[in-house]
């Protein structure tokens, strides 16, 4: 095992502020939406807290955006511009999560500082960070002061429409959080990726052990192939005689 510095400090700071903001926003959002059914905080206080955390998340979003816009790390989202390979790798990754992982197969993605995400992570994080979060920020700002933005709110179909989009994204995040946290436990130990998000260093199998594993896998494959061949190959005439 070797340690590789994968998560730079700004990203770690962004991640944990973002994580706590999103959780706090979901919880306060649920209190706002279900006031009367859930009565942990008064509505007035909850709305104020929700708004302030919302602005914190917006500021934090720009830390993330600035980091990737002004550093070469943006490459982690597009390590290779090869759609065919990307498609192939995505299928491979999905097959790993859907089947291979159950059989103890290794993760097909190998993390490097410039190829941090597997293909499925790459596409989902881009959709989330460039579409879902901005949409949630915009609808949140509109709902924060509906009168000030009444022109845009009316253009979009009214406050009910804006609120519905905001709630649909809340619903998406409520679902996503379970998946995100679960997938974070799929490192070589359950807490490996989570620890790495604090330290910045991911523990990765070094090349030797990777090669050893590869060889082992190769041998296993060869054995399996031979067995299969043995079963299917017709007996040679010499053996008959």
């Amino acid at each position, binding site marked *: 095992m070797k340690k590789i510095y994968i998560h730079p400090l700004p990203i770690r700071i962004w991640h944990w502020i973002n994580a706590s903001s999103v959780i706090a926003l979901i919880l306060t959002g649920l209190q*706002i*939406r*279900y*006031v*009367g*059914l859930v009565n942990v905080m*008064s*509505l*007035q206080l909850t*709305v*104020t807290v929700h*708004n302030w955390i919302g602005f914190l998340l917006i500021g934090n979003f720009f830390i993330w955006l600035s980091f990737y816009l002004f550093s070469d790390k943006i490459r982690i989202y597009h390590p290779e511009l090869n759609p065919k390979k990307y498609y192939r790798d995505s299928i491979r990754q999905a097959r790993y*999560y859907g089947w291979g*992982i*159950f*059989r*103890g197969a290794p993760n097909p993605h190998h993390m490097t500082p410039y190829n941090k995400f597997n293909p499925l992570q790459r596409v989902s994080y881009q959709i989330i960070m460039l579409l879902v979060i901005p949409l949630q920020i915009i609808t949140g700002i509109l709902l*924060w*002061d*509906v*009168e*000030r933005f*009444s022109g845009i709110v*009316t253009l979009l*179909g*009214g*406050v*009910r*429409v804006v*609120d*519905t989009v905001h*709630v*649909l994204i*809340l*619903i*998406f995040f*409520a*679902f*996503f*959080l*379970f*998946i995100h*946290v*679960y997938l974070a436990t799929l490192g070589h130990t359950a807490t490996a990726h989570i620890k790495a998000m604090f330290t910045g260093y991911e523990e990765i199998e070094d090349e030797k052990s990777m090669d050893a594993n590869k060889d082992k896998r190769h041998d296993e494959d060869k054995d399996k192939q031979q067995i299969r061949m043995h079963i299917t190959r017709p007996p040679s005439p010499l053996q008959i005689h």
Partner: protein
Amino acid sequence: MTISNRKDKMTMGRLPTDLRKLAGVMFLVLCSFSWLTSTALASIPDDSLSAEDGKCLKCHSFERLSTTLGDGEKLSLHVPGEVFAKSVHNWIGCASCHRDINLNTHSLSKNKKTYANKRERSIALAKICYECHEDKSHQYEGSIHASLVESGNFAAPVCTDCHGSHTVKPKAAYETLTGGPCKNCHANIFDVYLKSMHGQARSKLGHIEAPVCSDCHRAHDVNAASVEDRLKEACLGCHEGAKGAHKKWLPNAGLHLQAVSCAACHAPAARRRVDLMLFDSVAQRPISENEVSPRLGNLPGPRESSKDGLDAKELWNLVRGINRDGTAAEVTLRGRMEVVTGEQAHQLAWKEKALRNCESCHSDGAEPFQNVTVSLIRADGKRVSYDAEKEVLSSALSMNSVGGFYALGGTRVKLLDILLLLAVAGGASVPIVHLAMRKLLRKGK
């Protein structure tokens, strides 16, 4: 020796005779003009009537003097002279208003103008008021009172119904706590007003700036208070700091002031409802009944007679149908929280008692959202309401038709609640199932 002779001797002795005659005539003209003006001016503050008016009163002071109208009803022609003498119109005299009467032909039997009934006569004679009070007549013409008169409503007032015919008083006489003349028709509301903080401030605490009816509803351009934003403007006209005071504690204060009537919070004892008014979002005005009358045939009937309210689909079809009909207006439903009746709108309490608790509205099953109406403006300017099911506020089908009205917690779209439950259940079960598969299949291996 006469005065003129003396003057001749003293000052005009050297003037030619013709010029002296002309000066004499001019002097007499000037004297008589100054006498005329002084008597006319003297008569304004005076309670006495002119000699001409006295001639009219010779007959019209008889209490039994009357005529029969077209409908057979007797109309008293008695004019109490002393009352007329005290009215603000005493100086203009009878003939100024009753100019259709020719004294030479005015007799008991002939040349009498006959009216079908008292109402027709009042409406006809009110036109005479307009000639001097043109500005007030214009204001009145746009009022709900005028619209009701036009629509044939017998109770709606014309000038004389409020001001009287021969008893017209100065303006200050209407700014009292007697409630007159509004109380004549709106007695219930006036009694509620007297008990309200406005009525109490005026009657018990002596705050003369506290409003009477006309301060909020205006005197001549009276309109249905809830139709436009006029009433709110009336409130904010006196309570200038109210907007800023709300902003200090109320999130989205501007939106609240738009979507919630002042009385909804400041009359805490009142029952509330949500009214969805058909509204032209381009012209920013309410839609009138005649603009959309073909579509109204599908409605279950006005509020008073309806049993089943409009459901979300009917409402959606109504708005979509009106917009499809190709009207120039872009019709939406403008939601507003109001109190249920006009009487309750006058139950205004002292500021400290106003609702400040957000949960009164923003909570599951809150009272204001249990009562929903859809309204539009009738041709006579009055609002007509149709009942709607309360579910229209929480249906996904209302996304378009009721897009402009939404209250956190109170009008949640139920479909989103189901989606949230599914998302949480799905989100939680994916890791559980996946983890179980990992354990089971590895064991099996």
